[in-house]
């Protein structure tokens, strides 16, 4: 796809040339470290440990760590993607270039996803540290990261779409955060509703449920389909909306 690689490289460099990505990396490492230490200390103090939930399952699937990173990372990594191009007028250069809009949208999305993955990279140290004292199920570690990146990709795609429709990057940030909070609310609401179908629906979209499942090594088709939809739909809509700018 002509222009994808160029767009990816430019966006990726743009994110890492600014202090933003480095500040996020520092904040995330501190947060992950604090959460990990607290979880390990809690497990060390427990006299009757659970058979299903170990420190890594708690770290990846049941702590506030992952939802918090979604709430802060995804909006910040994507808010500039299109809103800034429109504000500065550089979108004119892109729209007059011989590249397709899907290449632009996917290039920006891939750069945000790669940055998201790199920000999570230091957390690989924690299973390696735990390996010194307990056996590690690497399968569950892998599925945990798959779940984190799958949902992260979905919220990044939503962030890209919000940046497309918003007039400014701050509005894009607020919109993306609002959508994330809606998902979080729906996930929590499953415990408050009695209606079977509604409860099932809330469970389907609950990010907490998915993270908990995948941190235990469970990969279900419906979760994968949900993540794929969460990625594909906003990116498709973004492509259509950017294309419509020519006709507005």
């Amino acid at each position, binding site marked *: 796809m002509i222009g994808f690689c*160029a767009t990816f490289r*430019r966006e990726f460099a*743009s994110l890492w040339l600014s202090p933003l990505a480095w500040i996020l990396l520092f904040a995330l490492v501190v947060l992950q470290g604090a959460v990990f230490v607290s979880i390990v200390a809690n497990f060390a103090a427990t006299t009757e440990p659970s058979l299903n939930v170990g420190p890594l399952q708690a770290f990846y699937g049941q702590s506030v760590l992952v939802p918090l990173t979604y709430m802060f990372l995804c909006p910040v990594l994507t808010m500039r993607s299109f809103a800034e191009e429109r504000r500065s007028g*550089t979108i*004119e250069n892109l*729209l*007059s270039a011989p590249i397709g809009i899907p290449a632009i949208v996917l290039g920006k999305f891939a750069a945000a996803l790669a940055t998201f993955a790199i920000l999570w990279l230091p957390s690989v140290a924690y299973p390696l540290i735990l390996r010194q004292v307990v056996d590690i199920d690497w399968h569950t570690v892998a599925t945990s990261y798959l779940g984190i990146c799958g949902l992260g990709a979905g919220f990044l795609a939503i962030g890209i779409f919000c940046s497309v429709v918003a007039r400014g990057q701050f509005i894009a940030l607020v919109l993306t955060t609002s959508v994330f909070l809606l998902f979080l609310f729906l996930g929590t609401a499953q415990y408050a509703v009695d209606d079977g179908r509604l409860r099932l629906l809330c469970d389907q979209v609950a990010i907490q449920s998915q993270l908990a499942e995948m941190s235990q090594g469970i990969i279900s088709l419906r979760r994968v389909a949900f993540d794929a939809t969460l990625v594909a739909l906003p990116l498709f809509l973004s492509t259509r909306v950017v294309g419509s700018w020519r006709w507005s």
Partner: protein
Amino acid sequence: MIEAQGLTKHYGSLVAVRDLTFQVSKGSVSGLLGSNGAGKTTALRMLAGVLGPTRGTVRLCGYDLIASPMQARRCLGYLPETSPLYLEMTTRQYLSYRAEIKGVAHSCRQAIVSEAARETGCEDILDISIGRLSRGHRQRVGLADTLQTNPPIILLDEPSAGLDPNQVRNLRELVGRLKEDHAILISTHVLAEVESLCTDVLVMHKGRLIANDSIEVLRARQGGAELRVTFRDPDQRVPAILASLNWQFCHEPPAADTKADTASSNGVAEARIRLTRSCSDTGQAIEQLIAALVTAGVGVRSVDRVATTLEALFSTLAQPDEDTTL
């Protein structure tokens, strides 16, 4: 090379561009003139593929911009107004990135970037962050981007904005060199730039194309009958004679105590007058005028023909007229 046919753009009830039809061929430089809000930038954006027309078609090098957008855009170098750039990149990184999205192979990219930088005087700023460059330098970086793949069609929106006089001269020389084998369309407010650079003029007014010809043809169409006359007129008969023969002062006749248009000394005045109707034989009109003045007892001391400036042409063409709403 550039063919616009019936190009129209509506923004709600506002018609920004209405039925724009023109061609720019290889080897010509066309100046797109118009006052603010005339629709110049909207027209250029439609030609560049940034905006889609409500009606009409654009063909670049024979490729329809809607049916074959990639092929059409490959023929195009477009410098938008204010030359938007990525400020965090260096000039070299930016030009290299732009070359890549225009499909230049990695092996040729460095050579193309260097050549474009040399052509536009950006060699010294290749490794400087664009955010630290002056407005003139940024304009040159935008120009380097526009020219770097040597596209056959070049669209420049206010290219000399922010440039110092030396850079403007360099730009004019560059456009002069490029016009041999390119089709160039320049949107500008600077009429002197059009006179020095362009072979043809397109004048837009309230979204319409009201003139499309070479500067010489436009001057001829205006009649070219502008005269500087020195005369002695003790009986104040000149205004009446001028009106009867369809001539008028270029500006309002000056009051007795001003020297804005007519310089008087010992009853001798100098004034610029122009013919108000189109005329196939302006020489005959001048003969009639002189004869009438002499017959009326006006002492005609000198008559010089003044070449019509583009400014005069533009102000005559762009008269206020109808509404632009639907």
